[in-house]
């Protein structure tokens, strides 16, 4: 039972990328080299390589060549809300952000809670997705928190893991059962930690900013209390747990203890929680409304430290497209979520690498090899023999995020109007050029 990703086929590309600074921490690679791709595989990494025949040459002086990114947490909105995103536009957005694999969450309409739904999606991905796309399956039927899905059959159909993301797992017992069955399926359970009673009708982080604005607060403990509960269950069952979008320092304290105990727990953090804080919400811009909400500076700093230390394993976008009319309403009435695929690297490069909070090599590891490892797919790699899963970045390009430039069908980006540095110019996924900036 292996994890599957699906995409349109096509002939592997012949490409010589010349003179880029290649950074791949898996091989402790950080040097200016030429990379020759032949029929979609990396044929050679070295100096002074020459193109032969029809091989296209990309002169990449001053650019960064990185292993392509992997997103463990994407909302593809397909099936059911293709007006917000479909597999074609999601691929376009992913490719423009340097991603070479994305995994869709199961909270679609219908929910991915049976093998036929998953197989139908797989067929569509094989016909429409340019970037290899995989899928989570739900833990509970219809995300209702009651009956377990047929996890074994879903795993056989290629699901990457199980999650009711979008809503928290209704009961500790449901998580316990899911972790028990996940052992039969060799998959992990990804948890959106949230205590609904503490969340109430909150719409932003509870603190100084919510006090000023009067917006209903989501206390940090609405996340951390549920994280603590999930970790207790995982410890008891020795289960393979993954924590989605960790956002508070309190959660990190519980996670650190779980690590000390040697639990098989992994965790992700989003680009928005790693770079933005709740002060942004003073603008009342509904694109800054997400769940978990943007947190204060102290939480953000703790999250960055955790990403650096490895307590947080990887970056995941929680890319959540929403229709324009749904976001063009007062903050409280807007749905939660920001898009993220197209801005993830640029936002983190600008916010963490250029500010010297995180090294480029670590950022690359956390966006590429780490999520691939959790997903159980081969890590993108700049090494001869590996499939060409690469992205080329212009680290100096300064660009402003503008709705019209985005490839996602939805434009609800928390970074609209922001000036970022570093931009993906070319993406090769599964040996095919999937994005090239004009």
């Amino acid at each position: 039972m292996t994890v599957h990703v699906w995409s349109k086929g096509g002939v592997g590309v012949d490409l010589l990328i010349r003179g880029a600074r290649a950074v791949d921490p898996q091989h402790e690679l950080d040097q200016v080299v030429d990379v020759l791709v032949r029929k979609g595989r990396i044929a050679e990494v070295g100096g002074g390589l020459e193109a032969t025949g029809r091989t296209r040459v990309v002169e990449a002086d001053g650019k960064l060549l990185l292993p392509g990114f992997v997103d463990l947490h994407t909302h593809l909105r397909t099936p059911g809300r293709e007006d917000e995103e479909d597999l074609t536009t999601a691929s376009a957005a992913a490719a423009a952000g340097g991603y070479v694999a994305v995994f869709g969450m199961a909270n679609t309409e219908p929910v991915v809670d049976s093998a036929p739904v998953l197989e139908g999606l797989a067929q569509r991905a094989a016909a429409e997705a340019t970037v290899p796309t995989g899928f989570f399956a739900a833990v509970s039927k219809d995300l209702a928190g009651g009956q377990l899905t047929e996890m074994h059959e879903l795993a056989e159909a290629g699901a990457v893991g199980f999650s009711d993301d979008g809503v928290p797992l209704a009961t500790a017992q449901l998580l316990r059962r899911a972790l028990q069955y996940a052992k039969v399926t060799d998959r992990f359970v990804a948890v959106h930690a949230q205590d609904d009673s503490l969340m109430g009708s909150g719409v932003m982080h509870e603190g100084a900013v919510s006090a000023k604005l009067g917006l209903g607060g989501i206390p940090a403990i609405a996340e951390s209390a549920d994280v603590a509960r999930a970790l207790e269950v995982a410890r008891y069952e020795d289960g393979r747990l993954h924590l989605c979008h960790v956002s508070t320092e309190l959660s990190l304290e519980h996670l650190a203890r779980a690590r000390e105990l040697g639990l098989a727990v992994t965790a992700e953090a989003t680009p928005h929680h790693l770079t933005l804080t709740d002060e942004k919400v003073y603008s009342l811009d509904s694109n800054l409304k997400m769940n978990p909400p943007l947190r204060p500076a102290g939480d953000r700093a703790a999250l960055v430290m955790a990403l650096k230390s490895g307590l947080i394993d990887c970056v995941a976008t929680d890319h959540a497209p929403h229709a324009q009319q749904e976001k063009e309403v007062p903050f409280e009435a807007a749905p939660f979520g920001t898009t993220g695929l197209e801005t993830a690297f640029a936002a983190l490069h600008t916010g963490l690498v250029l500010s010297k909070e995180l090294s480029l090599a670590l950022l690359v590891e956390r966006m590429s090899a780490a999520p691939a490892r959790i997903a159980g797919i081969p890590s993108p790699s700049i090494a001869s023999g590996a499939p060409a899963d690469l992205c080329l970045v212009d680290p100096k390009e300064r660009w402003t995020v503008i709705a019209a430039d985005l490839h996602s069908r939805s434009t609800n980006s928390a970074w609209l109007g922001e000036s970022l540095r570093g931009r993906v110019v070319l993406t090769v996924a599964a040996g095919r050029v999937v994005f090239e900036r004009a």
Partner: protein
Amino acid sequence: MAKRDLLSIDDLNRAEAELILDTAESFLPVLQRDIKKVPTLRGRTIINMFYESSTRTLTSFELAAKRLSADTMNVRAAGSAVDKGESLKDTILTLSAYQPDIIVMRHPQIGAGRLASRYTSASVINAGDGKFQHPSQCLLDLFTMRQALGRSLDGLKVWIVGDILHSRVARSDIAGFQLLGMDVTVAGPPPLIPRGIESLGVKVEYALDRLAEADVIYLLRMQMERMQAGANFIPSLREYASLYGMTLERLRSGQKVMHPGPINRGIEISPEIADHPDTLILEQVEAGLAVRMAILYRTIVGYDERSTDERGAA
């Protein structure tokens, strides 16, 4: 020239706030005449858009516009296109086609005024947006205080008592009272004091033991309509009344009592306090008219002192 909105009390600096209060004062004589009308805003169009029920705010904005000779109309959510699923954006775009000068808006959601302002060239005056702001209430409160306590409010101690969490009046008043140099304390049951409120520079009290220090006691009602069933903000109104209700026993002589209304006699305010001569509730209502005239006027002519001359007609 950029249009002038009044969405939050934070949109005003001290001089601008004081200018509105001075302007309101200059309108007072008009309201004492037999013919209570001046031609100042003749030919101007003012739309009152009320998505939430209101008595005093709507009537006083409407009357203020009429006293200034503006053409005014009221749009209520109930019975309008809003009932038919029209979005706020589309309603604003539609009404803006009439080229109004000012849209006065009340809405149950925070930031609705700011959102509306993006889609209209009219100035937007926020007449209450959910739990966030109610700037005209704050200005009329300041006006009432100036009339009752003298022009300088610097250093006065105000206690705002009650349901702070759900109160846009509290949020506007905290900012406005501080803007004019007052020292603000908020008091109430802990679940109704927003976490993080100290960051606004206020003191927090969970009991009324030190209430005697206050020069002004500003009471708020329990906003039961904003409290979800089972949320347990207060165990009961009875217990609230005994712990936080304003009574004669709790009143020190010389203290003034204010309340934005509507009041709930016997809960946050005892009948004796409601009818007490040191209670300024009706003065607040009265101030509402002159202050809203001043807000409409300043929104049209601006906050430049020199343009005050235009008010000659008043």
